[in-house]
């Protein structure tokens, strides 16, 4: 409190002589270095411009400004001409380009010419004498500060805000509770279903055929040659319309299918039956933040996410070999049906895509972890 008073009194001094922000007055252990200082030499003599000295140069500058403003008018007219003379012909991209280019350049000319002309006027013809304005401290005057304090005190007295504590506290409580209904109101931003349930499963079911993205043509195992990679969707996805959640289902079910030479495939115990003759299927959605892992390197059998460069090794259950992803891509257990088409044995055994807080609660009992580390954390 004492300190505050001290500060106020010092500030009062300051206000009376704003030009002297005395270092001493403020120096309460401040790191300000004292210096005896030089005297400011004051404004240098004003240097007249060519237009100030020579009337013919002044007249020329005037003509130039006028010329710029006339050019601007021309630009505006040209813009209207371009709009009419360069219509867009349906299907003709060259007409779009021409319209964009000439309409834009004409408008730019109209704008720039006004800007340049105005700037020329300001710099060559308007008074160039520098003007000096006094500065004052940003704080209000002592009188208005005192009055403000008085007003707040009066307000407090007349309302009894700090005296009637029960009124004050209940008011604060009421106002504090008020936003809560607004928060609750936001619940229906999303459907009533549980958020975690909604992303815990995909539309893959036992017997669902693997089909090409986006045509929906089912894939025969024979058609998958060694080294090839297919972008895959469930066959029944093609029957779902865009307005019935096509993209939502696809965002969960997108799969990448690769055929490796059988001797290159290192299968974890328990997952031997999940591939078919060297053909393996993995979720295409990155376990980092969910970009599609769409780049397949044929030589190394690596899958690369183009967003953040997480790299997965397909020969070893898509384990992470580089990048910010932590977990391998979930594997879709597959086999073939009677007609030789690739089908899913079941849904993924774990939630696909980026990690989320509740993820471990939705791991299927049949899930086979691929690494020792993963087994450890499960146990």
């Amino acid at each position, binding site marked *: 409190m004492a300190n505050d008073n001290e500060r106020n009194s010092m500030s009062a001094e300051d206000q009376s002589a704003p030009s002297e922000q005395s270092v001493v007055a403020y120096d309460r252990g401040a790191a300000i270095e004292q210096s005896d200082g030089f005297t400011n030499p004051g404004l240098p003599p004003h240097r007249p411009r060519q237009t100030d000295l020579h009337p013919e140069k002044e007249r020329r500058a005037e003509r130039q400004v006028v010329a710029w403003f006339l050019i601007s008018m021309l630009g505006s007219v040209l813009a209207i001409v371009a709009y009419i003379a360069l219509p867009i012909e349906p299907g003709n991209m060259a007409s779009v380009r021409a319209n964009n280019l000439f309409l*834009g350049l004409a408008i730019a000319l109209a704008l720039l010419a006004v800007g340049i002309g105005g700037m020329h006027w300001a710099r060559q013809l308007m008074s160039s004498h520098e*003007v000096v304005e006094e500065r004052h401290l940003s704080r209000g005057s002592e009188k208005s500060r005192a009055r403000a304090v008085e007003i707040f005190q009066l307000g407090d007295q007349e309302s009894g805000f700090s005296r009637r504590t029960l009124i004050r506290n209940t008011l604060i409580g009421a106002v504090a509770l008020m936003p809560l209904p607004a928060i609750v109101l936001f619940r229906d931003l999303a459907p009533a279903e549980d*958020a975690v349930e909604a992303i815990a499963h995909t539309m893959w079911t036992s017997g669902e055929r693997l089909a090409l993205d986006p045509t929906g043509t089912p894939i025969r195992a024979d058609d998958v040659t060694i080294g090839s990679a297919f972008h895959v969707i469930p066959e029944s996805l093609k029957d779902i319309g865009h307005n019935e959640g096509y*993209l939502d289902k696809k965002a969960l079910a997108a799969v990448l299918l690769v055929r490796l030479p059988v001797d290159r495939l290192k299968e974890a115990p328990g997952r031997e039956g999940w591939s078919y003759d060297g053909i393996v299927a993995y979720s295409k959605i990155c376990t980092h933040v969910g970009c599609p892992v769409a780049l397949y390197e044929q030589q190394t059998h690596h899958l690369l996410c183009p967003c953040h460069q997480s790299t997965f090794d397909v020969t070893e259950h898509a384990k992470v070999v580089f990048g910010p992803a932590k977990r391998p891509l979930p594997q879709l257990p597959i086999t073939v049906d009677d007609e030789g088409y690739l089908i899913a044995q079941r849904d993924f055994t774990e939630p696909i895509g980026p990690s989320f807080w509740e993820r471990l609660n939705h791991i299927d009992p049949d899930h086979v972890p691929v690494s020792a580390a993963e087994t450890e954390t499960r146990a």
Partner: protein
Amino acid sequence: MTATATRPSLTAKASNYLDERTSISTLVATLGRKVFPDHWSFMLGEIILYSFVAILLSGTFLTFFFEPSMTEVHYDGSYVPLKGVAMSAAYASALDLSFDVRGGLLMRQLHHWAALLFIAAIGLHMLRVFFTGAFRKPREINWVVGFILFILALAEGFTGYSLPDDLLSGNGLAIINGMVKGIPIVGTWISYLLFGGVFPGDDIVPRLFVLHIMLLPALVIAFIGIHMVLLVVNKHTQFAGPGKTNDNVVGAPIMPLFAAKAGSFFFIVFGVLVAIASTFTILPLWEYGPYDPSPVSAGTQPDWYIGFADGALRLMPGWETEIFNWTISWNILVPIAVLGLFIVIVMIYPFIEQWITGDEREHHIAERPRNNPTRTAIGAAGVWFYAIMWAAASSDLIATHFRLNVFHVTYALQAMLIVGTVVVYWLTKRIALGLQKKDREILLHGYESGRIVRRPGGEYIEVHQPLDEYEAWKLKAYESYAPVMVRPNAKGRITPATHLRAALTRWFFEDRVSPVTPRELEIAKRHDDH
């Protein structure tokens, strides 16, 4: 003459009419001849304001044609390669306003280019204010207001980027979805509510549209208003110069010179933007196709101003913890925390510096960066830190362009992020101190004139040209600080805060070059005369 005296002009009558109803003459009297100092770097803030006007105008035009809806349509516009393709109404209308509306493409490109200039100018303006110490008392609050505007501008940029619902914008949203899901406890639900169900859903575009054209612009305009009012109240800073003091403003009056220059500059900025929009393609969204969660193109990147956030994600190793059946995604949380800390430090820096220096004076003279070496070094280190994260958002393009291994590029950037920041800090500080020493030399002994003179004794010397008093003033006129001693406070106690402050002042001001004193100059003069 007598005619005008008896019969007031139309302007006079109109002014009188207005003033009798609004007392606007008071405003003109107060502000009409207000003085603005002149320096090229003060234009950066103007560029922000003028590009914002271009954004508002072009954006309004776009809303007349854009349909913020994710309902499925089959494209039936002018662009042949996409004919019949199923896409959202948002993407289709973005194509239509580009290809079937005269001037539509121009307005869309103007909107995008103006937005990029807006954010770039905000960044440069913030750097100018930071490096010249223009955030010091009484402008700390305006720094925070400006900082909020920067964040709002990023939010405007991201929401706008997401609206066309093309492949790139959809992938950006996929990344946001993944990041939100990484937030502990509430992440899954926030994503669910944000997208109106499972990602991508069909609510996100209309929701972002409302934010982009209503809520965020309203906030931007409100904060620009506060920013401008505080600018008027505090008056603009000026660089040290002859005749310029901490107690005056030297420059051009608003009426007419500053208004004419600023008004003309508005048209120049606008004109340059339209010229760029008519000659340089930005976001050729027809090339990307509609959003689909499955395909993605190599080399996908956000708009450059979001790059630092994307780069932070790329540089983070793949750490996650599973504890009590919960998953904690450090690979998402650490980048968010680092970025959060970074921008919070930027926001509160004025208060930190003031606490360290204990300097409660008002400052209206913009400092030359060299005259506050530690602050300048901190700023440069921050710029480096930001720039490396930003470069990391292009790690794959750097790798393909220079034929490097993308893994090695990432490792190199990780090292540069940590080590480089320290090196840049140290280097900048040394350079600033070196420049201060050079200034001292010049002030004390003058410029090297290049004129070699042989003295009678056979000795050769180079003649030094002394500065004139106006040039000299620029080098003389700066303040410096010194470390404080640990001293007991009024109660006779030495608190940990006192120790901390003393240590921080040592960090800031231990290495310093003191300003030349009149006495030193006197001695140097006498010495040189001999």
